């Protein structure tokens, strides 16, 4: 009898060992300024997942210009999830490499954009060049910092926000709009490959009079380097920036991480996920959490990519494809 009990105990222990907690690793390939956001979020999700399943999940992060990051995933970087600056970059995973389905945006609420942001100006303390709106950025002698739209998602939002402003200013006269955008980029001395690089250029290297920046990145610069050094200027018109997220079907199926990868992105919409987004200066989607953080964001007159540019696919093709409008305007200078 004793032997039988011992045997049963041993078997139970063995079964327990087999069924014990798993250790799962995810790779989140993201764009430049989300480092701090996902450091906070990853810790929160790991706690949540441990509590829900007993499994340990470790999330590794990779950051860079959004377009560059999408290219890396297409080229084989084994991302379980992508959290990129714009839907156009995630679309590339569906179109070229067929890593995700074409209707990926329908899989999560808000077109798979769990938080939003916009584009603002960061200027030096006292605003020595008197920058107030987009018009001031094309003036002679004003040095503008913005990343390269060919590689950076944030830079594409910057470009399109400026284009939207000029379109309204010149009543849709495309020739004048192009002249405006050309003049703006003529004032750009350095094109970094990503938004974080441009932050370094403006904030740490002391180059330029104004930095066209993600709102969250501008707040972060104020937080990191003190409000005594910089000021945020909100232009009269900006754009609703919607960074989007997706799990990479081909990778998660191969790695067996589909459930946790999906849960990782879904949890961004939870109260805790939205709270973390707000804390990191992203605009939460949740009305309750957005209301809580409303005071930290200015009210901005926003255009959307769909209404002004006909969506990302069209904007990408017209403006940022090789030989597109940006190339024509920038290379001319």
């Amino acid at each position, binding site marked *: 009898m004793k032997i039988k009990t011992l045997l049963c105990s041993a078997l139970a222990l063995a079964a327990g060992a087999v069924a014990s907690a798993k250790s799962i690793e995810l790779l989140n390939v993201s764009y430049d300024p989300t480092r701090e956001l996902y450091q906070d979020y990853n810790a929160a999700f790991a706690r949540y997942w441990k509590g829900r399943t007993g499994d340990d999940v470790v999330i590794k992060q990779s950051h860079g210009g959004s377009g560059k990051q999408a290219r890396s995933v297409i080229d084989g970087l084994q991302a379980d999830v992508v959290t990129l600056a714009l839907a156009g970059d995630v679309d590339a995973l569906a179109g070229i490499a067929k890593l995700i389905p074409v209707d990926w945006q329908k899989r999560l609420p808000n077109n798979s954009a769990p938080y939003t942001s916009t584009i603002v100006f960061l200027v030096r303390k006292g605003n020595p060049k008197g920058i107030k709106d987009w018009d001031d950025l094309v003036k002679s002698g004003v040095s503008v910092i913005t990343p390269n739209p060919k590689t950076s998602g944030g830079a594409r939002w910057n470009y399109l926000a400026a284009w939207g402003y000029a379109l309204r200013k010149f009543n849709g006269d495309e020739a004048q709009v192009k002249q405006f955008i050309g003049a703006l980029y003529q004032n750009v001395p350095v094109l970094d490959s990503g938004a974080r690089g441009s932050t370094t250029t403006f904030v740490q*290297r002391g180059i330029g009079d104004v930095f066209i920046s993600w709102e969250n990145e501008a707040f972060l610069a104020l937080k990191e380097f003190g409000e005594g050094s910089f000021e945020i200027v909100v232009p009269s018109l900006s754009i609703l920036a919607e960074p989007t997220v997706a799990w990479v079907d081909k990778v998660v199926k191969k790695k067996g991480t589909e459930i946790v990868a999906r849960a990782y992105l879904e949890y961004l919409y939870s109260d805790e996920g939205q709270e973390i987004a707000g804390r990191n200066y992203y605009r939460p989607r949740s009305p309750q959490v957005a209301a809580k953080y409303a005071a930290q964001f200015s009210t901005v007159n926003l255009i959307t990519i769909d209404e002004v540019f006909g969506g990302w696919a069209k904007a990408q093709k017209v403006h940022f494809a090789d030989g597109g409008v940006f190339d024509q305007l920038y290379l001319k200078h």
Partner: protein
Amino acid sequence: MRTFPTAIRAAFASAVLVTGFLPAMRAQSHDDDIQALREQIRQLDQKLRVLERKQEIKDEDAAAAAKATPKITINDKGFTLASADGANAIKLRGLVQLDSRLFFNDGGLVNNAFVIRRARIITEGTFAKNYSFQLVPEFGGSSVSLVDANLGVALDQALQFKFGRFKSPVGLELLQSDSWTFFNERSIVTNLVPNRDLGVQASGEVWGGTVNYAAGVFGGVADGASTTNADFDNEKDVVARVFAAPFRSAAGSPLQGLSLGVSGSLGREKTASGRTAGYKTDGQQTFFTYAATTIADGQSWRVSPQADYRYGPLGVLGEYVLSTVNVRPSATGAKAELQNRAWQLAVGYVLTGENSSYAGVVPKTTFDFANGTWGAFEIVGRYSNLRIDDAAFPLYASISTNADEATAFGLGLNWYLSKAVRFSFDYYRTRFGFAPGAPAVSTAPVLRQDEQAFITRFQVAF
């Protein structure tokens, strides 16, 4: 017309105005200058910062690109094309050996000759880090042949598998690269160990690299022979070798470079034709061969204790081989078990002070006549002996055309012009012994006198 007093008044007023406002105007101009200079400095500072930042971005891009760019390496170890992460690589190496052979006191019996001893293009590759291949065709000698063709799977440093055609792990000197043996020809001991064979082998390094082992199953080849890429019987040989460097981690100890090992093979042979093409002298002349009708039939085994010692410029290599084979004079003749034995002791000393090594000498300088650098020089000496079982005569081998013993010594000089280029100048003398009952004068002309050969080699190996 203006009156004089009016003119004076005007002049006076002007003077008062000028003297009163001039300092203020000067101060204003001075401030403007300073302001302009400050602006100029600010603009120059910005330009400088932009230039520095552009360079910084360029450097970052170059560093990132370097991480993703396939690497091309060209050095004295060959040409390598490798993926950025090193997991996939193709390596091209080569070996060319051009010999001159000069024989003394043989009455012109053996041709003095120039020989292309070896000419190999070695292609090696690694895929997904752990899978490899090696392909070695031979263009030297009298015909083109395939020397090595094998695939490898590396599970761990301690466990690697090799499949295909490669050196059977028995002879110490045979396992050393053709390029870096002390002498330009291996010793007569190599006659008794298997050369290239077809099979599968597990090998690895254990205990921190102090012990390496190899064990495998092979088709089985005769002494000194290589497989013809077809198994000549239904039997297989089991081959194993253990080689230990017990003091490897004892830095500075005179024993650090001591390695000891033993290897062996065990199998059964049943051949329809001759056991071996013959045993050769250092000068590559045949001094023993079984009769054409003799066949192997039964168990064969070899055992070979071996040692290698390196201490600075000094190198010593020694091995002993006992090879046992069961033979019949014909398919129905009486069976006998023959035991042939051989041993050698070889010593090298690098006169220019570089370290002696099983993998060759790396000269401190490359030979450059214009700059007065000469590379490395090494003197080498060797004594070796091979003895055929007397029972082989006369039933299994002709007593009148074979020697039953060869004793050889050699002296030589190696000149390492660079890591990849070597000249070697070797003198060999081989004395023959004969079985009881052999004729006073051998019927094989090459055995009637000691063999004296002077073999030089110009070699490029990378």
